[in-house]
């Protein structure tokens, strides 16, 4: 526990660097691109169009809300998770000169990858709001829970980001494995269809996926005017424990980074 307090305090001390590194990554990510932040919107929009064709024309499913807004809502949350991890996985290995030559808390690399994705998320959230207006989706009191739901997603993402960035530093296989895992994981999550309808043993296994509960809660407060359920509460609590554990583990391994890069 004392280690945890220590690492959090140290990260707080270096908060300006975290902001700087995030600004750097944002600047570099969209420098020399014509669309700039447009890319943050483009991908979920294209996916929404594709899945709308599949799930309204080919194999129509009823999701209770207009399908495009259902899919876009899921994709925005999922894209935040997936792109945070995609940038985290190589965040340590792509900065060898900083990792081997200068000391500062290494969490900054995966954390800034998550922060950059939060900015992208904010941009695409504007499009989501526009879609909700267009489809005349009412919002109610449960919307007040949105910050808590988003925080839970961020906590879970940050924990995963710490683990995979560290894992990739020690074993470069991780970045290849990651691409496969993230693709499978998306279809095992209720991103573009309600996975909760899968029953039996498979359904029981799929119910263990924390991202399903997080995305379901995200949609519940935004589209369904429902408060998030028990499953969300459990996932949130578990994510906090996971983040604490991952952070301590990361800190313990941090001093071996320079030797392994």
């Amino acid at each position: 526990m004392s280690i945890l307090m220590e690492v959090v305090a140290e990260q707080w001390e270096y908060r300006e660097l975290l902001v700087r590194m995030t600004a750097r990554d944002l600047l570099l990510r969209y420098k020399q691109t014509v669309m700039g932040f447009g890319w943050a919107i483009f991908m979920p929009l294209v996916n929404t169009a594709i899945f709308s064709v599949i799930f309204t024309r080919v194999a129509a499913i009823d999701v209770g809300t207009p399908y495009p807004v259902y899919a876009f809502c899921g994709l925005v949350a999922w894209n935040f998770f997936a792109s945070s991890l995609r940038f985290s996985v190589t965040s340590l290995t792509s900065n060898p000169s900083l990792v081997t030559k200068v000391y500062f808390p290494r969490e900054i690399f995966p954390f800034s990858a998550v922060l950059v994705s939060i900015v992208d998320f904010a941009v695409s959230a504007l499009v989501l709001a526009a879609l909700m207006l267009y489809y005349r989706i009412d919002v109610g009191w449960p919307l007040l829970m949105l910050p808590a739901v988003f925080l839970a997603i961020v906590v879970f993402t940050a924990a995963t980001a710490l683990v995979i960035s560290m894992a990739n530093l020690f074993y470069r296989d991780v970045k290849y494995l990651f691409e496969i895992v993230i693709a499978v994981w998306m279809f095992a999550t209720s991103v573009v269809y309600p996975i909760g309808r899968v029953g039996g043993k498979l359904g029981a296994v799929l119910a263990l996926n924390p991202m399903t509960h997080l995305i379901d809660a995200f949609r519940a407060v935004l589209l369904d005017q429902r408060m998030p359920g028990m499953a969300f509460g459990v996932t949130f609590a578990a994510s906090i424990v996971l983040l604490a554990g991952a952070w301590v583990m990361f800190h313990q391994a941090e001093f071996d980074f320079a030797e392994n890069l």
Partner: protein
Amino acid sequence: MSTVIFDGVSKKFRRGERHDSLRDLVPSLVRRAMRRTPDRTTLADQEFWAVRDMSFEVGPGEALGIIGPNGAGKSTTLKLLTKILRPTRGRIEINGRIGALIEVAAGFHPDLTGRENVYLQGAIMGMSRAEIARKFDAIVDFSGVQEFIDTPVKRYSSGMNARLGFAIAAHLDPDVLIIDEVLSVGDVGFQEKCVARMRELLARGIPLVFVSHNLGAVVQLCTRAILVDRGKVQFDGRPAETVAEFRKARRDSAAPAAAGDKPIAITDVQLLQPDGDPSPLHTTGRPMTIRVSYEAREPIRQPHVAIDIHSVDGVYCAGINTRMDDCTLGTLEGRGFVDLAIAKLALLPGCYSISAGILDPQGLRPLDLQERAFPFSVVSDRRDFGFVYLEHQWMQGHGTQIRPAARHEVRLVSPTARSLAAVALQEELE
């Protein structure tokens, strides 16, 4: 007041590749599970002590020099001091902000401008945004890259890069200062500024650790010095004593190697100024003579002599040899020297090193090779970029010559910097 304490510090490394693919994960995990506590005192296969049971203390206002041969553990000590590595055993205590004049441009991103990089690198070194904003003008002024501050640093020369990095580090106001070879960067004028800044911090009572090959600089700057070899402190004393000890040790160990079974050995390489005096400082556009002295144990018929020049960051600037020039030397016997006379030195200001070799008559097999063993600096008032000065003239249309508006005044090299560099070179050549 802060102090630096190194108490019985050891650091173990593993030779060769570590497991870095999943295939090796399982065996390594099994091995780790088998022994319950990590072994901190003995060496496993392929392991070695980079630093072994090292203790020293640096008090307020004290400047400790760390010298020693290559591979002695100096860099590891430095990385332990800057918290990049964690000791296998022992305790390191440093309170306060560590200012490290090491890898001062490590955080620079080539696509960002000088200005953006100042903020980024400053934050990496632990400065707040407000602090950097307050010191920004002073930093840019110190670095001397004002005109290019809004240019991406990928267009900077390596010297400009280093100068900007140093300028940021120099404005850190640290509680402890750690320096690695500060004097090898930038031109002499810039080096002077760095030395002045170090003295200023020292006068404020900040402990300073200086790791260097430049023995002259250690003697001039430090109040104490330790000699490190094979990961241990071999000698601790006043800088002059430690330097003497180091030279003695080096002579003792170097003697048998030089007298080995080489038929011919390069005993010295000197750089001569136009007046024939050896000097580590040369000027762009002026003559320079490279004198390679040798000692032949047996007469060597028609050998070839090769000279390479590298910049301090390893760029291969020039390679000259008698074979490519179709020059044939006679027979080399006993002691003597071969001179390479350069009429106009085309190198731009910076630090360079010379490699010299004597090769067999076919010009293939080296009989003796001294790689990057002889450093020197070039100074001048030229402000061109790159490594070479191309003698040139601007014309407009046909033959209308454009003359420069005013000649720059030749910057005088100040005596301190000059003597520092000279002492350093003497040490190296000894």
